[in-house]
C-alpha cells in the first residue's frame, strides 16, 4: 500500500499541476472535450476502484449507478427546475440506496458470480428506464433544458468550465481513495480482498465493509452520471446505462492497476485518448474502441494482472540494488 517515489514531493505536485493545466492553454474545443471525457473516466475509475479495486469485488454493472445519477438529476432539473448541483446529491442518494439493495442480495456471491449479478442488475435497471416512456422518455432518452452559460445550473458553452469541474471531481475522488487506503477501512477492504475467511477470523465484519465500499463507490459514480448529463446535455439508456459503459469503467481501472491510488488515473490517461485516436485512425469504424479495450485487457492480464502500476513498480525496482524492496519484485514476478 505504501509506495516510494523518486521525485521529491514538491516537484511531483508541480509536474501534476502543469500536466493538468496544459489542456486549458489550447483553444481547441475538440481536444478539450477529449480531455474532459478522459478526466470523467479517471473519476469513474477512481470511484469503481473503491469496490472493484481496493475491496476486490469485480462489479461490471457500475453503469447502473452512473445512469441513476444522470437520470435523477436530469429529471429533477427538467421537471422541477432544481439545479443539477443539488440534484446530483439526490442522484447519489438514489444510487446508494440501489447499491444497498444490490449489495445485500449479491455481495454474498463470490468472484465471477458477483460480476454476473452486477451485470444482470444493470440490465434490469436499463430495461426499467427504457420502459418508463412518459416519466423518463423511454429509449429516446431525455434532453437537458438548455440554459447556455449558466454555471449555477451546471451548464456552460465553454468546455473550460467542464474541464475545471472534471478536474475538481478527479481530485476529490483521488483524495477519497487516498484517505481510504490510509485508514482502517482500506486495510480491512484489502484484507477481505486477499482472504475473506482470514479477515473474518480477525474480527473484520466483511459483509458490512463490502457494503460500505459499494455504497461509497455507487454514490461517487452517480455524481459522474450527473456530470455527463450536463456535459453532453442529452442522456439515453444506451449511453448512460449500457453494458459497454460498465465494462469500460472496470477495464480502465484494471489496466491502470486495481486497488492502487494512481492506477485508475493512469488507466484513463492511456485509454481514453487511445480510444479517440483509434476511432480517428480507423475512420470511425464501429466498435473499434471496444476492440482496443479487449486487446489491452488481454495483454495486461497476460503479463501483469495487477496492471500498469505494478509494471512501473517493477521498472523502478530493477534499477535498485536488491534490498528490503526486492521482496515486492519477486512477489510481482512470482504472481504470473
Amino acid at each position, binding site marked *: 500500500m505504501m509506495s516510494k517515489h523518486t521525485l521529491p514531493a514538491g516537484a511531483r505536485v508541480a509536474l501534476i499541476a502543469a500536466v493538468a493545466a496544459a489542456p486549458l492553454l489550447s483553444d481547441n474545443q475538440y481536444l478539450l472535450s477529449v480531455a474532459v471525457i478522459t478526466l470523467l473516466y479517471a473519476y469513474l475509475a477512481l470511484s469503481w476502484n473503491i469496490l472493484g479495486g481496493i475491496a476486490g469485488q469485480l462489479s461490471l454493472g457500475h453503469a447502473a449507478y452512473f445512469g441513476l445519477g444522470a437520470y435523477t438529476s436530469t429529471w429533477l432539473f427538467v421537471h422541477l427546475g432544481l439545479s443539477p448541483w443539488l440534484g446530483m446529491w439526490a442522484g447519489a442518494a438514489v444510487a446508494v440506496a440501489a447499491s444497498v439493495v444490490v449489495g445485500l442480495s449479491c455481495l454474498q456471491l463470490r468472484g465471477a458470480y458477483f460480476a454476473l449479478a452486477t451485470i444482470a442488475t444493470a440490465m434490469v435497471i436499463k430495461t426499467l428506464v427504457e420502459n418508463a416512456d412518459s416519466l423518463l422518455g423511454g429509449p429516446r432518452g431525455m434532453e437537458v433544458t438548455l440554459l447556455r452559460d449558466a454555471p449555477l445550473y451546471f451548464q456552460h458553452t465553454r468546455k473550460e468550465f467542464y474541464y475545471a469541474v472534471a478536474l475538481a471531481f478527479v481530485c476529490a475522488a483521488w483524495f477519497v481513495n487516498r484517505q481510504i487506503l490510509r485508514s*482502517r477501512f482500506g486495510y480491512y477492504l484489502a484484507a477481505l480482498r486477499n482472504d475473506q475467511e482470514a479477515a473474518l477470523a480477525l*474480527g473484520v465484519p466483511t459483509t458490512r465493509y463490502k457494503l460500505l465500499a459499494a455504497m461509497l463507490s455507487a454514490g461517487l459514480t452517480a455524481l459522474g452520471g450527473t456530470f455527463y448529463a450536463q456535459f453532453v446535455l442529452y442522456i439515453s439508456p444506451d449511453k448512460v446505462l449500457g453494458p459497454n459503459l460498465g465494462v469500460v469503467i472496470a477495464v480502465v481501472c484494471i489496466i491502470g492497476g486495481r486497488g492502487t491510488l494512481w492506477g485508475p488515473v493512469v488507466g484513463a490517461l492511456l485509454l481514453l485518448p487511445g480510444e479517440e485516436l483509434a476511432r480517428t485512425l480507423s475512420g470511425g469504424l464501429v466498435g473499434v474502441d471496444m476492440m482496443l479495450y479487449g486487446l489491452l485487457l488481454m495483454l495486461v492480464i497476460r503479463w501483469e494482472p495487477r496492471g500498469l502500476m505494478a509494471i512501473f513498480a517493477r521498472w523502478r525496482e530493477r534499477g535498485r540494488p536488491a534490498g528490503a524492496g526486492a521482496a515486492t519484485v519477486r512477489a510481482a514476478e512470482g504472481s504470473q
Partner: protein
Amino acid sequence: MTTLLEFRGVGKSFGGLRASDDVSFTVGEREIVGLIGPNGAGKTTLFAMASGFLPVSDGQIWFGGRRVDGLGAAQICAAGLVRTFQIVKPFGEMTVLENAMIGAFLRHARRDDAMEAAMKVLRRVGLGGREHQVARTLTLSGRKRLEVAKALATEPRLLLLDEVMAGLTSVETAEMVALVLDLRRTGISVLVIEHNMKAVMQLSDRIVVVHHGRKIAEGAPNAVANDPEVVKAYLGEAHA
C-alpha cells in the same frame, strides 16, 4: 480457576455424518489445553464452531460468561476468542506488517497505533526484521508464525491454535512451544490442536482426546497418554 471457554454437549452433523457428538469440556483462565485425536476426529470442527465459522447442531458454547454459539465470527473475535487456520491464510499480497495490522486494527482504530501494536507482536513471534516482506514469500515456518502474529494482534483472551507446529523442524517447534508458554505468562489462555505429541505433552496443563467426534478421555498429559481408550484410538485394538 475460572472457566473461560465451555463446550456444553456440542454436536455437529454434516448430513448423515456426525462430526462432533455431545462434546463437553472447558478451558480456564491462563490454562493451556491440548486437543488431540486421530485424523478426522472432529478437532477442527470444534474450533470452527467455537470461532463462529460453523453453526452448532446441538449444545451450547459459552465464552467469558456469554453464550457465543450463533454469533458471527467477527463478533466472537471482538469478544476475545481468536483462531488460527490449519492451512495458514496469510493476506498474500500484503506485507508481514500489514498482515499483523489487520489483527491490530480490532483494538487500535488509528493506523499509527495499529502499526505500533503490530510491530510489537511481530517481534514477539520472531518476525522482527521481516516487516516489509510480502507475506506470500515467507517460508512455511514464517507463515506459521505470521498466522499466530495476526491472531495475537487482536489481543485475545483465548487463542485457538490449529496445528501451528505441523511441518516445522524440531528447532522451530521448540521455539513455537516457548512462544506459547510465554503467551500464558501474559495472561492468554490457549487451546491447541496438535499432532506433535512431544510438543503437546510439554505444553498442555490438560489434554482432551476426541475420536470419531466424541470425547474419549480428558486429564493430565501423563494420565491421558496411558489411558487404554486413547491408546486404542491411536494404535488400534491389538495394542490396548
